[in-house]
């Protein structure tokens, strides 16, 4: 057989959420950039299909014709994922996403996050579960920022959310994957996509998340806060792809003893 005729590798099937398949397993936030131009360039470099946005009150009196986020991250090109960042109870989160649905012309896919306190931004799980239940019954497709607790993740799945998104470490901390064992438990049990949301600091963190078997990774600070955000966006794209490929390929088992890579037979000495 001619070496050049080797069969092509099967492409990764992509990430399916709520019945729609996305090429990229990297989801990115649109916050913390220095300006809209940097937002646009980094978003493009990330290769992400799904971009999170925040919903906020319009500044009354500000120039209504100033360029807006949706001009540089257009819904015609990207799937916009409105979040509930800054909400500390279920009622506020549900209200925010009802506004988002109207803003985005009936768009159903949303990111729910109900926070516990400002110091940790850890999810308030009782309120998160309450909001998830209301939103699912109201017809939303809900992706949920949650604790890395397999029991809470299962409760969310039972409610009917479309993805669970446990934190790898605190939002914006860049501390990486602090409890891979909990993530593995969630990945193993879940029949819906599991994405790491929050805590990724650099490319290797994203690769580790994917190697664990996560379906995707969502990040914002790791890209926007890097010295060169556009370059880091590309690094994250490559890391998520590399980690996914490694997961699909199946890593070698770790072993205590060495194992030579070169054959022992036929040595010249």
């Amino acid at each position, binding site marked *: 057989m001619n070496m050049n005729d080797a069969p092509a590798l099967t492409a990764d099937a992509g990430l399916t959420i709520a019945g729609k398949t996305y090429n990229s397993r990297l989801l990115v*936030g*649109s*916050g*913390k*950039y220095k300006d809209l131009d940097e*937002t646009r360039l980094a978003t493009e470099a990330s290769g992400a299909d799904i971009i*999170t*946005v*925040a*919903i*906020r*009150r*319009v500044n*009354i009196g500000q120039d*209504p*014709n100033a360029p*807006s*986020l*949706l001009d540089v991250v257009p819904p015609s090109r990207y799937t*916009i994922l*409105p*979040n509930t*960042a800054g909400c500390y109870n279920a009622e506020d989160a549900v*209200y925010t996403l*009802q*506004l*988002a*649905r*109207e*803003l*985005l012309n009936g768009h159903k896919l949303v990111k729910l996050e109900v926070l516990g306190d400002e110091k940790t931004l850890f999810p308030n799980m009782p309120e998160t579960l309450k909001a998830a239940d209301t939103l699912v019954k109201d017809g939303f497709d809900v992706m949920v920022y949650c604790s890395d607790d397999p029991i809470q993740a299962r409760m969310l799945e039972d409610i009917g959310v479309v993805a669970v998104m446990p934190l790898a470490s605190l*939002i914006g901390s860049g501390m990486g994957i602090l409890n891979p064992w909990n993530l593995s438990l969630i990945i193993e049990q879940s029949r819906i996509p599991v994405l790491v949301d929050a805590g990724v600091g650099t490319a290797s963190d994203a690769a580790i998340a994917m190697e664990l078997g996560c379906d995707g990774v*969502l*990040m*914002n*600070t790791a890209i*926007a806060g890097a010295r060169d955000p556009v370059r880091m966006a590309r690094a994250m794209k490559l890391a998520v792809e590399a980690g996914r490929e490694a997961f699909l390929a199946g890593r070698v088992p770790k072993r205590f003893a060495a194992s030579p890579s070169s054959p022992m037979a036929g040595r010249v000495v």
Partner: protein
Amino acid sequence: MQIELNGKPHALADGADLAQLIAALELSGKAVAVAVNRQVVPSQLWAGRVLADADRVDVVRAIGGG
């Protein structure tokens, strides 16, 4: 009359509806969503949604966030 617009007092002519408020803010045709007293009002219903004194109106948009 006086309404509360995005958390702040806002003077408005009696009998004004949401469409007039949004037009006065120069936000007609912009990507915004509106709620009155925490009830979302679809844009096609702004005209004719007459506001009352002390109504709480939220006008929101999408901004950068993670």
